[in-house]
């Protein structure tokens, strides 16, 4: 009896054990390490100085730039992604096109870092083929008009490459959950399209829309590889500053870096908490 109980226990937990070990080694322990480190100085004594250090203009500035880029790319990603998802779900497109778009979104939402930066440099960089094509073919010089890929605006545009597809992937199941009968029930009860949107769809969809936008925000906030590959250090992002702090090429204060990471964890943690709350609210209605 004891033996069979033990066998069952081993069988039940053996599948999930590698994941738990992996999470402990590369997520939980490092997080605990940096949280503890955020409260210590270089001599391993307790201090709050690292958090006071976060108030330095350079660090608060980088937090603001990161928040700005994340928020703007999340809002734009949400808007364009919502429109695209709606078109896929209700636009009457051929089933094959829907499958193609969804597959593309699956790939594009994970396409980031150096390949993405290179793709944008090759297309809308100063000598990119789109830039050159516009200049030579239509006499339009986008750089002379103020566009700069290696800027906050350029970074937001690049982020949209993975933000919009991510929105599609998160939001398509929500729209697929909308039942045709809701619209018909509303119609037969006297509602017009606006009233259907206003009273039924909007209250049902807003938690998912806002939740998705928050997830896009967290996704952009933690991004580093694309920004680093594209702009080096010309855009003052918190992730790039943190990287510099920890790597220690120029600035080396590891514990200040831990405090910065702590701040980032707090922001992404709150974002994810809000996303999960909103998602569970929406799922309760749509189940």
């Amino acid at each position, binding site marked *: 009896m004891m033996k069979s109980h033990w066998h069952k226990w081993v069988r039940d937990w053996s599948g999930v054990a590698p994941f738990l070990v992996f999470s402990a080694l590369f997520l939980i322990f490092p997080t605990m390490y940096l949280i503890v480190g955020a409260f210590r100085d270089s001599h391993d004594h307790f201090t709050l100085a690292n958090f006071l250090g976060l108030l330095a203009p350079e660090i608060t500035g980088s937090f603001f730039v990161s928040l700005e880029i994340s928020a703007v790319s999340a809002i734009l990603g949400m808007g364009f992604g919502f429109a695209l998802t709606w078109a896929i779900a209700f636009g009457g497109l051929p089933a094959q096109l829907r499958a193609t778009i969804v597959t593309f979104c699956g790939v594009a939402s994970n396409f980031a870092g150096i390949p993405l930066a290179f793709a944008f440099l090759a297309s809308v960089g100063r000598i990119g083929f789109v830039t050159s094509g516009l200049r030579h073919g239509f006499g339009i010089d986008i750089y002379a008009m103020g566009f700069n890929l290696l800027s906050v605006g350029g970074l937001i545009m690049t982020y949209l490459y993975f933000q919009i597809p991510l929105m599609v992937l998160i939001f398509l199941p929500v729209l697929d959950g909308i039942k045709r*009968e*809701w619209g*018909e029930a509303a*119609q*037969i*009860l*006297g509602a017009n399209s606006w009233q259907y949107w206003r009273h039924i769809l909007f*209250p*049902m969809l807003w938690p998912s829309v806002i939740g998705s936008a928050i997830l896009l925000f967290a996704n952009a906030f933690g991004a580093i590889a694309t920004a680093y590959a594209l702009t080096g250090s010309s855009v003052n992002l918190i992730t790039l500053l943190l990287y510099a702090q920890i790597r220690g090429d120029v600035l080396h204060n590891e514990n200040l870096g831990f405090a910065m990471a702590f701040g980032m964890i707090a922001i992404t943690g709150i974002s994810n908490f809000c996303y999960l709350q909103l998602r569970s609210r929406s799922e*309760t209605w749509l189940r």
Partner: protein
Amino acid sequence: MTTGSSFLELVSVQKSFGQTLVVKDFSLTVEKGEFISFLGPSGCGKTTLLRMIAGFETTSAGAIRMAGVDVTGKPPRERQIGMVFQAYALFPAMNVFDNIAFGLKIAKWNRRQIADRVAEMLSLTQLEGLSHRFPFELSGGQQQRVALARALALRPQILLLDEPLSALDAKIRVSLREEIRQLQRKLGLTTIFVTHDQEEALSMSDRIVVLDKGRAEQIATPHQLYNAPASPFIAEFVGKLNRLTMVRGAPHTGELDFDGLKVTANSSLHGGHEGARLIFGLRPEAIAFGEGPAGANRLSAIVEDVDFLGSILRLKLRVGNEILFMDQFNNRRNLIPERQAQVEVYFMPEDLMLLDESAGTA
């Protein structure tokens, strides 16, 4: 319940999707307060017809009139119809009160009027105390009651029920269908009910429209439909039926040969050509144990199987090379025959229903 005035008229209504004609030249007159069921197999066009009455589908030809007014081209919101959907279709982000009040708010009723009407509907559908619950907090039966209350709140001229019971479990289905029927009678509401469940249709309806391949096969009361089906399709679709192949003997006597046994049919079936092969239908409950009264057709049969269906025993009998099903009420005093037992059974000539006269000659 009928009051004798035509209220809903469908005149030569047709519907095609592309090249496929799914509803063919359908005409029906429904009286005020009547409960009509559309019954038929999947794909027979019953839901399409209902959706045309609701205004969700356009008609390809023909006209729909309600209380004498042509509503053929009118949108659903202008038809004064209430509808209950198969999957409830409650608005998930609204509680019970708001679901029922939705149509009233759209119609711009004031708060007091809305509260009064919702309370009335909650009482009518026995949902008191649940007004603050959300749909996900309700059982299937409760959700369907909310859907019914929502559909009735605006006092529609016609109530459309699109398979409203099919998502519910058997016991709730039976109790809710009784409630729906009582409510419909109480309100005197003209009702169209779509179902593929013949028991529901037979138990609830004033009249039933049996549809097959987009066409009305028969429009009749449940009693007429079951006992005098207008076609072999209806005879076999409604209720269980034995199909018996017989060969006509002397035409003037109505004598038939059933696998070597002599049986007689009703006098209305006399005549025709001797030796013609005929297909008859016989309901399982028309067969009984014993010798029966004078004139009964008596058969000797072997019991192949006995199915216990609760209130009914269904026996599978072998008569020569033919199989017959026989239904008997379950009664403690009745002995259940053993398998392979030989039994004597009978049926009356008038219970034979001629299904097909063109099955050739023997």
